[in-house]
């Protein structure tokens, strides 16, 4: 079991006003993980991982990061992270955007695009007219 934290990063921030770009999807679908944890999972950096919480699962691309404590992963805030974040707030108004237990499994599946995720939730992709 891993602990998922989400948060801002500068690259996420740079793309946040242009969310339908590929660059945004790249950034927001990155799973930062300690290199030793990657080794334990028998994975290489850049391979895809399915991250599953009690609320859903999503495919992300791994990126190794020694600054993280072992046993934790970090995903920039955005639609990918939110695909597995619980909508409950403990009646405080604020969801658990941090400190969420998740399971990680290697996958060969492609990452979805941000529009794929929105369509899974009942939305409709917007392509420039």
């Amino acid at each position, binding site marked *: 079991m891993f602990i998922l934290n989400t*948060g801002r990063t500068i690259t996420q921030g740079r793309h946040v006003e242009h*969310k339908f770009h590929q660059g945004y999807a790249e950034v927001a679908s990155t799973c930062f993980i300690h290199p030793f944890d990657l080794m334990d999972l028998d994975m290489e950096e850049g391979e895809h991982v399915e991250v599953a919480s009690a609320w859903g699962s999503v495919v992300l691309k791994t990126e190794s990061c020694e600054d993280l404590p072992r046993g934790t992963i970090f995903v920039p805030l955005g639609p990918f992270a939110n695909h597995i974040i619980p909508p409950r707030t403990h009646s405080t*108004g604020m969801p658990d955007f*941090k400190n969420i237990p998740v399971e990680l499994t290697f996958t060969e599946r492609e990452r979805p695009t*941000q529009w794929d995720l929105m369509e899974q939730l*009942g939305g*409709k992709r917007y392509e420039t007219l």
Partner: protein
Amino acid sequence: MKHYDVVCPFCGCLCDDLEITVENNRIIGVDNGCTLGNAKFMGKERLSSPIRRNGDGWETISYEEAVGYTVDMLLEADRPLLYGWSGTHGEAQCTGVHMCELVGGIIDSTTSVCHGPSILAIQEVGHPGCTLGRVKNRADVVIYWGCNPLEAHPRHMSRYTTYADGYFLDNAFRERKVIVVDVRKTETARVADEFVRIKPGGDYAVLSALRAIVRGKGDMVPASVAGVSRSQLERMVAMCKDAKFGAVFFGLGLTMTKGKYKNIRNAIELVDELSRHTKFTITPMRGHWNVYGSNEVFTWMTGYPYAIDFCRGIAFYNPGETSAIDILARKECDACLIVGSDPGAHFPRGCAEHLADIPVVVIDPVPTMTTAFANVQIPVAVSGIDAEGTAYRMDGVPIRVKKVIEPTLPSDSEVLGDIFARMKEATGYD
């Protein structure tokens, strides 16, 4: 043409020293801005006219039609949610409150997913704060707790703390001590004099321990608290007590983690305790450029800073019940107007799913993830680029954001003003 001292409408720092070069009504250069602000000023992908979801696709519609749709949607709803507001200027937020009051809906801003918990804490114990210049000119100890300014507020340290000149400091950079408290070693942690790494979910315990040490009861604190040794906590307290002016800044690392607002309350009570020994202040690192403005406007107009429910005519406030996440996750609204915000991207999926089930109007200059859930989207001018108005910095200082290019689309206040006027007409309110 060059515009000087332009205000950046990106984050709560509201840097007001940008230089924007404009040619043929297009921005071609940004000086002094950070990478986040620059990206916003240089952004190009805007919608040029309202769009409507049409079966399996999208069609462009007129402003007239879009406004009409919005008016009908709001007036027909039993419990409409009016959400967003942090990405627009104060004048538009005021109209939003009047609209909400008129239709009997719920109005909430992105506060509920950033510093809402800080407000709940302030409502319990108050807030010893100050404007950022007070910190810049005086602070010799700066604590960043659960925030990463180098990535989220890139100029915070250079304008207001570590790297800024201070009147009372000869060599500010050397004289200021920086303490970073976080669960991971962030970019900001790398430049800290002291990095305190906490186990996830352990902030509250560490804050309690610090308070006990400040009160002289350190001997009762266990040797290790949530991954932090007592000796490091004692060192931290000594640095704080020795400070002439200490400033705590905190971010989503405290508001979003376990315990939510109780973490902030504990941090504020630590600052209260330190204030008995020396000068100490605490400031939330507000995210959106005008999220604090939404709190100010909502407060003077309704009495409450966010999550206000007007369904019963009077203002009712109960974050956890009247806040956007809870309303959507519990499917407690039947229409939604979203202004300058992107819950599609930034809310947990359970919330977005309800948006797919109800009529939604989005007012936003650019297509966002929320566009996917919109029945209608109305593009507007960007506040701070081609529309002007009031914004409130993270410390409460009001600044007027400017217009550097001539708008080709109406501003938020104009579109909302139009909707409100039509609503008043339809309800016979003069």
